[in-house]
């Protein structure tokens, strides 16, 4: 958990990555860390490839953009092709197994997880794929505590959706656990 984490979350416009980034950042604040969160804007944000970035550090954070991700999330093919480059050696990359067919060569540990599918099938709403992903990546990376990310999540989601979101998050935690014994590619 200590040290600086550069996190890049990417996917298509409607997948809620910015919210995921905000929740992650707020979780880190609860953990007492410094954070900076940025995102890509523009017409691209409506579709195609968009991204949200979070830097978490016990130190003051100067440069606010992610240069080389420690943690990468890719929820669609286009964004993986566009934004996955530059992952750090031994970094962590999580892609959606249902939506991403091709993963470029990377120095990171790559996990291909059924994020959207889990959201659709086990929560019944694709909409919460971002929360499933959040669960998976925080559990896999350990950069924020499970308690903090849960608290941060529940503060942000609309009233009435808490249970659904908590479930999605926990499914994400679960995916992480399973994954730890199923690394897809490490090169």
């Amino acid at each position, binding site marked *: 958990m200590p040290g600086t984490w550069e996190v890049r979350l990417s996917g298509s416009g409607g997948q809620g990555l910015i919210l995921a980034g*905000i929740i992650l*950042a*707020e979780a880190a*604040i609860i953990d007492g*860390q*410094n*954070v*900076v*969160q*940025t*995102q*890509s*804007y*523009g017409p691209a*944000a409506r579709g195609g490839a968009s991204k949200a970035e979070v830097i978490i550090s016990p130190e003051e*954070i*100067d*440069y*606010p*953009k992610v*240069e080389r991700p420690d943690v990468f999330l890719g929820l669609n093919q286009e964004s993986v092709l566009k934004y996955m480059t530059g992952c750090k050696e031994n970094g962590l990359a999580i892609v959606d197994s249902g939506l991403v067919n091709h993963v470029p060569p990377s120095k990171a540990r790559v996990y291909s997880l059924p994020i959207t599918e889990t959201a659709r099938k086990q929560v019944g709403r694709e909409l919460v794929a971002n929360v499933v992903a959040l669960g998976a990546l925080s559990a896999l990376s350990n950069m924020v505590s499970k308690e903090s990310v849960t608290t941060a999540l529940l503060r942000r989601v609309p009233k009435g959706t808490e249970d659904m979101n908590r479930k999605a998050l926990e499914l994400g935690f679960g995916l992480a656990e399973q994954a730890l014994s199923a690394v897809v590619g490490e090169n």
Partner: protein
Amino acid sequence: MSTEPRLIQGNEACAEGAIYAGMRFYAGYPITPSTEIAEILARRLPQVGGKFLQMEDEIASMAAIIGGSLTGAKVMTATSGPGFSLKQENIGYACMAEIPCVIANVQRLGPSTGVATAPAQGDVMQARWGTHGDHPIIALTPSSVREAFELTVRAFNLAEQFRVPVILLMDEVVGHMREKVTLPQPGEFPVVNRVKPTCSRENYYPYKADGDKTPPMACFGEGYRYHVTGLFHDESGFATEKPEIIDWQLKRLHEKINQHLDEIITYTSEETEDADLVVIAYGGTARAVSRAVKLARQEGRKVGIFRPQTIWPFPEAAIGELAASGKKLLVAEMNYGQLLLEVQRVAAGRSEVHSCLQSNGELTQPDVILTKIREVYEHAPGN
């Protein structure tokens, strides 16, 4: 207000800073990347008894805040490049009629529509020279979310103290970035209110000032019944074409700022003392420069960073001193070289002035700056 640290966006910090400073009248027209300021204030202002007004365009917004200010309110508008261009005529009016107001310009990539969502710092010179005719201007430029809050409060303080429009020159990086910030409690930060006349109506000359050159300002509706115009005017506020009075007025407008440069101009400088090379940067770019400077120091290069928070009036004395000391200067900004021109002017040949410019819609990367630092440094005196 909570004392907990929160994740706050730069634009949000600006909106909250404005409320903290006592701003209770906002008028604007949406434009990326400043829109969040309006959206937040649309919700927040009515909660604190303030007024939020969405006008038909930027010209009207600027006009409306001047009208609002005359009733005694602290006022603000927010915009970006295209809207900033449109506001220029009425910004000049505010200069001439000495109306306190704050204009946030969250810079995006221009010219023209450019790229609405891309960061840039291309309006630095426009902030100074955008309206016709000679006029002094104050512009502040924050580098972090926390500073967006603080400089917004300062912007109001300066506007009220000197009866001037103050430009809060943000950039998309700072406006859209979210950081952990603990907002100050009321009272923690100084808040300046405008000086009102204490004399009777008969003795009130709205443009007559004491030594500090800023006249007390009466509110409309309080019985002073005075005249405000964008024409040159005498102390009484009425139009004149007399050269000697014009001269006097225009001088006073400049002097009220120039006499208080020490109060107005703030900047930070880090590791400049022993530096052979000082990088001058502001806003989002300064964040990349900070990183680059750290890396350069790690490489054993004596490099510092000078970061103006007040960009206009230009911190001429401080930068002049750096130049006089013979340190190499490197200006990093997201434009084609704007503050650079001022640095060159002020250096006046006393030190080398280099630049690291980028204007392609992306925040300059520390690497790029570091490379430039190395390049310039190699030829630094003593190396």
